[in-house]
């Protein structure tokens, strides 16, 4: 890694900070517009108005918004994400507990969609207008058109309810003890502890959620890889080089492959966002106790600290992945770092 690359990486990191700060402010402002009274939530369904008032003071909900924001940022700087109003636990603990479930689901889905999507996308572009291309075009267009919650429900209906061969939801069988926690990801932990029973159960539970989640992103990545490769194919310099008499095969390797990889790596950032968003729905459908389900519950329950926490985490994760993508791109294509 040379110096200009390092400078570029640093620059990108510095750039990410105001984005996350802005995100925080955005979410914070919206969260205070939510109609429900946060103090009444803390107090619980049986509380009297006096109790609600006391809690309002305790949590300083009566302060002006900017003051509340500063208070929040200050605490955040100390690594304190506050407490979930509803569960009474530290948001940080909630997030740590839920994160591995979502990470596992997302990783499996991402690997699935890349392994299938990228090769198919390149193939479709190179064999443009072949039967394969048309077939893939149909499949990917369909993949982007299916509502993932509906796909999940249909898969449940068919495979779980009618055929009875896959579980309906959850991460592991009811009567199976989860593997000893090392990473929190059941499949990995089961492998590490050589727990065959847990491995089998966790893997079986992973099938439907990961397929559902991967379906849309598989379609996206195929589609974008195809059009990415096509864009390159149609760019003038390739035509030029062909005109200059370079053998087509060399042209393909020299430009196409590299540019296809660039296009794909670029898509990983988008893909990650897609998957992250998908988890909210998929986890709701499959009762997957991860961040997506947590985020949804936090939002419908107007659990402010939790919303801020999970949004922050999603934002940081997304920004980080995109940062890594950019840096990876600059490694593949050093010209990027110069701009």
């Amino acid at each position: 890694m040379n110096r200009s690359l390092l400078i570029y990486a640093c620059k990108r990191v510095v750039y990410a900070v105001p984005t996350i700060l802005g995100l925080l402010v955005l979410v914070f402002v919206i969260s205070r517009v939510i109609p429900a009274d946060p103090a009444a939530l803390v107090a619980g369904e049986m509380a009297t108005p006096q109790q609600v008032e006391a809690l309002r003071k305790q949590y300083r909900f009566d302060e002006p918004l900017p003051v509340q924001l500063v208070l929040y940022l200050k605490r955040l700087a100390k690594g304190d994400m506050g407490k979930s109003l509803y569960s009474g636990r530290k948001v940080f603990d909630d997030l740590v507990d839920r994160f591995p479930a979502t990470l596992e689901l997302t990783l499996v889905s991402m690997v699935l969609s890349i392994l299938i999507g990228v090769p198919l996308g390149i193939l479709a572009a190179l064999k443009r207008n072949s039967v394969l291309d048309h077939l893939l075009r149909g499949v990917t267009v369909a993949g982007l058109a299916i509502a993932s919650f509906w796909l999940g429900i249909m898969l449940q209906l068919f495979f779980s309810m009618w055929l009875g061969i896959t579980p309906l939801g959850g991460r592991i069988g009811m009567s199976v003890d989860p593997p000893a926690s090392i990473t929190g990801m059941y499949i990995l932990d089961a492998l590490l502890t050589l727990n065959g029973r847990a491995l089998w159960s966790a893997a079986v539970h992973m099938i439907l959620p990961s397929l559902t989640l991967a379906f849309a992103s598989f379609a996206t990545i195929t589609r974008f890889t195809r059009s990415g490769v096509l864009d390159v194919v149609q760019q003038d310099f390739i035509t030029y080089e062909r005109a200059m008499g370079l053998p087509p095969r060399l042209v393909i390797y020299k430009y196409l492959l590299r540019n296809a990889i660039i296009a794909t790596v670029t898509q990983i950032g988008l893909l990650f966002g897609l998957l992250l968003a998908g988890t909210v729905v998929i986890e709701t459908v499959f009762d997957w106790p991860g961040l997506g389900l947590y985020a949804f519950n936090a939002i419908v329950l107007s659990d402010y600290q939790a919303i801020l926490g999970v949004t922050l985490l999603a934002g940081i994760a997304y920004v980080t992945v995109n940062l890594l993508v950019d840096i990876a791109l600059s490694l593949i294509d050093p010209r990027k770092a110069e701009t």
Partner: protein
Amino acid sequence: MKGFRLAWKKFTRDRLAFTGFVIIFVLLLAALFAPVLAPYPEDTFQIHPADRLQPPSAEHLLGTDSMGRDILSRLLFGTRVTLVIAVIAVGVSLLIGVPLGLVAGYFENLFSEGIMRVADIFLSIPQVILAIFLAQSFRPSIRSVILALSITYWPWFTRIVYAETRALKKRAFLEATEAVGAGSLRTIVLHVLPNVSSSIIVRSSIGMGFTILTAATLGFLGVGAQPPTPEWGVTIAESRQFLPDAWWYATFPGLAIFIVVMGFNMLGDGLRDILDPRIRRGFD
């Protein structure tokens, strides 16, 4: 005119695109003539508890829901809801996103930097999460869904237009037009916009489909349209607790979403091939 005819010819030859066009045309007809086409148009609000959860039959082609309402009729009326949401949300996003993207891409100053920073902030969180959050904050309704989708979707246009404009700027001919003395606005409208329009169209096509999907998702999660609105996502959510027995209740609204979104995607896909001038110089 000749160009148009050529495009139309190419368009009708592109089976996918044409199918998409037909689907959307049918969708428009369905939305327009829903009161005539629906066997039980009053079922948008009328309930018949005694006919609860009837399987598909000659009387009710797609069965009835938990309130004894005809699902086919409600699906037909649902097309109106879906179209209104998607058209307004994408339209607003276009109106906000494209000009911002052009300006940010064309000029290289603090203002354009600011635009992209703000867009980045919106894009630094998955759209669905932010949209759920917004829809819930506005208090769940169709209007909230439209607002939430517009607010969260414009940065996609901005980012793409921005990227394309920047790429374009690097090419020589823009500098040439400026050297000739064309004004910025003129250059943007006459030279930049046409060159980025194919990306905008692709994005809009995906956008229409995407917006319909997200709106349905919000409905499904309970933060979108409210009962008795015959919105498709809401219907699927209502149906879940009657599975697997009332399979028709969940299946048909999902199929409706699928077909409509598919229509927009196919149309967009086809239009891209037709409108993108570079493709004509492509390999084939």
